[in-house]
């Protein structure tokens, strides 16, 4: 009864949730000739996207799974909160400042950042630390393109990211984490080709609740490492502070690689529920990307560096 079947319709035929949720405004706009509100809500199609890495043997989740079930604490801690509240996020103008230990620090306007390298579609699994997962066709390019463009110096050992923190957000500090949301990667992780600077999904620009206009996707790490709505990228010498690690380092380590053998202290990470499936499935080491990334951690005790 709970098993949902693969939809027979195409993405292009589905009214996006944002538009559907705004149907009154859409109608008002259509009749009154005032289309600004409605076009604002409609997802922008991304052009010139080539096909990139595809995770084999996986079926992409329906778009609605990925756009209505989110963790974006700045817009509420319930899974259904971000789709309702993130509409207040203003994604233009948007500047991403790349700074720190590099020869050419630079502030990128989001539209020029999107043109820095060719956009690719990549189908990745995403495994949340809460033991659920989805398969998403992301659009972006390897973060290495951006990092190389600013010429990191020898002191750049880590990359620190920061999310926007502004008044469109709903007093997120009530949820117990420190904001702005911060995340980080080791330099070799950040330069790994699978590490995706992400601007879109399902052929379109990122919806706001999914971290518009630009976010990280690191497919072999737990989802919370994939920081959303990035405004700052800093090249630093020491391991940067990360939001979840700050409030509970015992549960959310710096690396947070998907690892079925290292349990979260409060729940097992051995299995996960794929959205749309009835029973849990086994979680894969490095989320199934071990062939590509295991060498980054050769010789490291992953129980210690969780």
């Amino acid at each position, binding site marked *: *009864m709970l098993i949902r079947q693969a939809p027979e319709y195409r993405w292009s035929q589905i009214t996006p949730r944002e538009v559907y949720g705004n149907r009154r405004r859409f109608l008002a706009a259509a009749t009154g000739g005032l289309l600004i509100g409605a076009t604002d809500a409609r997802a922008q199609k991304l052009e010139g996207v080539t096909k990139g890495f595809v995770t084999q043997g996986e079926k992409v989740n329906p778009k609605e799974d990925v756009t209505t079930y989110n963790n974006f604490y700045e817009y509420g801690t319930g899974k259904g909160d971000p789709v309702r509240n993130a509409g207040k996020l203003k994604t233009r103008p948007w500047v991403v400042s790349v700074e720190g230990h590099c020869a050419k620090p630079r502030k990128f306007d989001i539209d020029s950042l999107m043109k820095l390298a060719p956009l690719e579609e990549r189908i990745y699994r995403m495994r949340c630390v809460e033991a659920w997962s989805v398969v998403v066709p992301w659009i972006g390019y390897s973060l290495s393109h951006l990092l190389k463009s600013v010429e990191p110096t020898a002191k750049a050992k880590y990359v620190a990211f920061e999310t926007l923190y502004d008044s469109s957000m709903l007093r997120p500090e009530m949820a117990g984490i420190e904001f702005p949301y911060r995340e980080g990667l080791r330099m070799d992780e950040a330069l790994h080709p699978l590490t995706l600077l992400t601007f879109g999904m399902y052929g379109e620009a990122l919806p706001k609740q999914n971290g518009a206009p630009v976010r990280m996707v690191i497919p072999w790490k737990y989802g919370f490492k994939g920081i959303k709505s990035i405004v700052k990228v800093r090249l630093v010498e020491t391991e940067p502070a990360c939001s979840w690690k700050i409030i509970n380092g015992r549960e959310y380590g710096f690396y947070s690689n998907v690892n079925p053998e290292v349990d979260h202290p409060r729940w097992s990470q051995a299995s996960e529920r794929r959205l749309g499936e009835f029973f849990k499935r086994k979680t894969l080491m490095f989320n199934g990307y071990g062939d590509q990334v295991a060498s980054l951690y050769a010789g490291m005790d992953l129980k210690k560096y969780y």
Partner: protein
Amino acid sequence: MLRSKWSKVVVWLACLAPALWFTYGAFTNNLGPNPIEAITRGTGDWTLRLLLASLAITPARRLLGVPDLIRFRRMLGLWAFAYAFLHLMTWVWLDKFFDPAEMWADVVKRKFVTAGMAGFLCLLPLAITSTTGWIRRLGKNWQRLHRLAYVAAAAGVVHYWWLVKSDIRLPAMYGLILAALLALRAFKPRAAPSPR
């Protein structure tokens, strides 16, 4: 009005409504992208709500001067047990697939599961001894035994508290309500009979 037999039917149906909603939602795809989580959370939420409601009956009778509320206490408690049972079953069936070894490992290893299981085990004898026959047989001990309902509610709040990642607002709210109910119990006015 509260004495009408229909009032019981209304409360009974109200208690059934969430279960009907979950069933309807499951069949019509209305529970969001993770329906199993929605059902697990929903049945857990309703266990706590109904348990607190049943514990609120006694102080409400006194404070509001509506002694007839007692007619609903057993029903609310049994419905709390029913939702606790459904909640437990989502875990037994959908999470652990009836694997006793895995379930045991979870109960021993995970604090929040330990607390939840303890709460359920407190409710179990209460549900069994809820019949008129058992009330008569146990006499004064029945009341003593049924104070376990407070322990069960406390275990439920702790279970929820230990589960959340960082946002403790909801479990804290349930905890405050439970604390208030306990306080009302502790500061019962002595012999002063309330005018009715």
